[in-house]
């Protein structure tokens, strides 16, 4: 069998998915299922953003599939009038993989949470990212287990007191963006559930990206982890904490843009007052930089205590996808097989056969 050159991703994420001329609205994507999240849950905001964003893609509704795992966020597919599968805990990326490889005409989305994606499903997440499957993963991070009623999660802060950690959690948390970058993700973004504009922009670029896109969405659980991201939503300090990324621009933030991100002596990045270091010291963000070093350093600026939180698109680079490569091999092999005239009978018969002929009286 000859090797097939892997296709370069000149395609966009949705280029093989059929589109429609019909005008779509958010309500076209609203299923008849009653939404059953708790009042005040951040999932409502994300659902509203996704419903109003999907019409923008102009895809045939029947060619969109949402696959989820288990957890509060994983009820998401029930509330969208597309094809959907609410699967099992942690396995949505694996199921989406089989779908994405076999159906290039589908827009495949994974909805998962911090427990689903990073704890029980950690293995599938990193491998879907490494393979660069053409899927978009929405990781709702509320830093708590909600559906099982309030145990700490792999993104909970050290010392967190929960039902399962009455003396405080001694577990060290994951930084999902750092993890994704370490897993060779080609697209990594982050947004806040309540920031419809920022979230929609990240979703837009994630959908357009050919390959695996991971979008971390900070999401509030009002029942078991209420107000966990409030410092990023309200109060005087919001602008001093949020570091929004704009591709091609120097990274600066603050109420008056007074802070900036500069190279640290350690080799990483750090936050400085621009008045102290000067404009020229600011690092410029390039999401398409092949070397993930700066994207990773940016992810490390996001402290677990939310002193600083980087949002936007950390990384958006092109790399061949697994599903395109796998299909290219099948296509090439099929063409070769047709040229050779391969068929089932020839396969079954093989090369080394012997015949048992009937004897003259008809018996073998």
């Amino acid at each position, binding site marked *: *069998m000859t090797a097939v050159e892997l296709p370069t991703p000149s395609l966009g994420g949705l280029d093989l998915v059929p589109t429609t001329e019909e005008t779509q609205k958010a309500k076209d994507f609203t*299923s008849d*299922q009653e939404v059953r999240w708790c009042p005040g849950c951040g999932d409502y905001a994300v659902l509203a953003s996704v419903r109003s964003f999907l019409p923008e893609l102009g895809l*045939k*509704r*029947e*060619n*969109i599939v949402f*696959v*989820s795992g*288990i957890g509060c966020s994983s009820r998401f*597919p*029930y509330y*969208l*009038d*597309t094809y*959907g*599968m*609410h*699967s*099992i805990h942690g*396995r949505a*990326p*694996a*199921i989406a*993989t*089989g*779908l*994405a*490889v*076999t*159906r290039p005409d*589908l827009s495949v989305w994974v909805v998962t949470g911090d427990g689903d994606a990073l704890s029980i499903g950690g*293995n*599938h997440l990193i*491998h879907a990212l490494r393979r660069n499957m053409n899927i978009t993963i929405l990781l709702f991070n509320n830093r708590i287990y909600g559906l099982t009623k309030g145990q700490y999660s792999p993104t909970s802060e050290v010392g967190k007191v929960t039902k399962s950690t009455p003396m405080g959690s001694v577990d060290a948390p994951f930084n999902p963006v750092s993890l994704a970058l370490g897993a060779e993700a080609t697209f990594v973004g982050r947004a806040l559930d309540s920031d419809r504009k920022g979230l929609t922009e990240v979703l837009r670029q994630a959908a357009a990206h050919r390959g695996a896109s991971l979008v971390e969405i900070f999401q509030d659980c009002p029942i078991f982890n209420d107000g966990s991201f409030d410092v990023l939503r309200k109060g005087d300090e919001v602008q001093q904490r949020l570091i929004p990324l704009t591709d091609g621009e120097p990274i600066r933030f603050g109420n008056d843009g007074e802070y900036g991100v500069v190279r640290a002596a350690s080799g990483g990045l750090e936050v400085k007052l621009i008045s102290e270091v000067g404009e020229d010291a600011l690092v410029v963000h390039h999401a398409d930089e092949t070397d993930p070093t700066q994207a990773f350093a940016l992810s490390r600026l996001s402290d677990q205590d939310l002193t600083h939180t980087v949002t936007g698109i950390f990384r958006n680079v092109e790399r061949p996808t697994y599903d395109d490569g*796998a*299909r290219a*091999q*099948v296509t090439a*092999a*099929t063409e070769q*097989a*047709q040229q050779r005239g*391969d*068929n*089932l*009978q020839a*396969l*079954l*018969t*093989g090369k*080394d*056969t*012997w*015949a*048992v*002929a*009937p004897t003259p009286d008809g018996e*073998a």
Partner: protein
Amino acid sequence: MSTDTEVGAELPDHLVAHGEIRQTEVKQTHRVVIRFAGDSGDGMQLTGDRFTSEAAAFGNDLATLPNFPAEIRAPAGTLPGVSSFQLHFADYDILTPGDRPDVLVAMNPAALKSNLEDLPHGGVLIVNTDEFTKRNLGKVGYESNPLEDDSLAPYQVHQVAMATLTRTALEPTGMSKKDAERAKNMFALGLLSWMYHRGTESTEEFLREKFAKKPELAEANILAFRTGWNYGETTESFAVTYEVAPAALPTGTYRQITGNLALAYGVVAAGQLSKLPVFLGTYPITPASDVLHELSKHKGMGVTTFQAEDEIAGIGAALGASFGGSLGVTSTSGPGVALKSETIGLAVALELPLLILDIQRGGPSTGLPTKTEQADLLQAMYGRNGEAPVPIIAPASPSECFQAAITAARIALTYRTPVFLLSDGAIANGSEPWNVPDASTLPDMSVEFATEANAPDGSGEFWPYLRDDDTLARPWAVPGTAGLEHRIGGLEKADGRGSISYDPDNHDRMVRLRQAKIDGIPVDDVEVDDPSGQAEVLVLGWGSTFGPIGAACRRVRAAGLDVAQAHVRSMNPLPGNLGDVLHRYRRVVVPEMNLGQFAMMLRARYLVDVRSYTKVAGLPFQAEELAGVLTDAVKGDLPA
């Protein structure tokens, strides 16, 4: 046998004993069992495989039993490193790889020590003397050299310095001593090929193809092979050669096939017959990996293979592909099934087609990866949370795997259900002649996807769990079909409509519907072989015990006793006539390579006092031992 002077002319000079080729006595024999045994690095599996191909090409019936350690290269010359290949070939239809070898080829002291006990007195023993050094003898605890004491007196011993002879023959090639000696397995193959009147061409052709990129290696191996052949021809140590005539098998075109190869072909065929793309999501595991290897070669036949990050992702991807309208397949062994259980349960709830190929091996846990066992039956049957019935198909021999895969796929596609196919290590690696089917006679398995709304209330909605009256299968509506957008998942569904339902009565109904769907799958009646019609004892088997049970029945009947035999190929649902068959006999014996799992199912289901005869030694039953058990049973002495 006529002498072939052309071959003689190619002899290395030092091997031509007296400048002429002598005549050897030729004995006709109906069947022979040969066992090649050596170190893991000695190439015994290849040697056995080649001899098998020669026997197949000659038209013998045959059955094989490869037996090798889980370690790829255990320390050389040790007992755990011994690898063997047993081949039974005959001029009539045979059922097993044979209990005991007639000929044992022992390439080193470890191979001799671990295999000699199986060689009956009077058997032929061919020993590679070069490895019988003090150090090698010491490694396996021989205090004196068995070639020099009288411990081998009961056997017909042929001492052959295979390594030396091979090395000497290969000297002109300029190969290193070490490399040259590695071809000694081909010397052994050549010697045995001569003893049994096998042609040399197919093996020479095979070697040229195998080493196409290194022609010098091909020629060296061919030289070693011919040297072995000529050694038999010219030395006087072998007084007798044997002829085993072709077997009178049913008319047809035959090829040799292993269980795993037949299984892979069955999967390819299922894709062609259903006109669906095949998607294999899997993770390497012994003894199932060859199914992945084989299917990965058939991308041109519409097969996509995906080597996942783990067993769970393998089946998850397969189920995702099924959701998208492919024939989703996963291949594994017992430990992998344990990991896949949750996804199998999801497939039961989703009611989507999925083929699970379980090549059973010794357990529990990692167990005996390269040895055979039948202890996954209850895992396949019940190894999930909740009431999660899954059909189970169990082929009885290597060649049956082809049809079994097609049947399993047909059930999966027709009834929208995961289906287990239970093979095992003996079937997977064992080989036999296969009467190649005419592809045009294979069944059409075309599938109709749902295309239209189906709500009985005329609402124009699509109800994903509205069932077919006949099969109880739900519609398969694949993404991309306009108007049929729907959401499915592991939560309980409302009967018909398919929305989430926690209603108690609905759950009870859905549990029973899922069970009824599987119970209602039509299954061929079990056939009973009771030649005299007088038998009081029925021996009932499943899976790879078919061969040894059949061979045992022949022996019992040959001794003038009556015994009936039946074999089950659908473990779930069971054949409709099985209860009647069981009740028709006074005594029922069920031999299994587990601790009585099928017997337990039968007792529970039919209230019949079936008796288990069990062995979990990692090796198939021997016909002799089963014949003993059945003879005792006929005489009223049943297994406990």
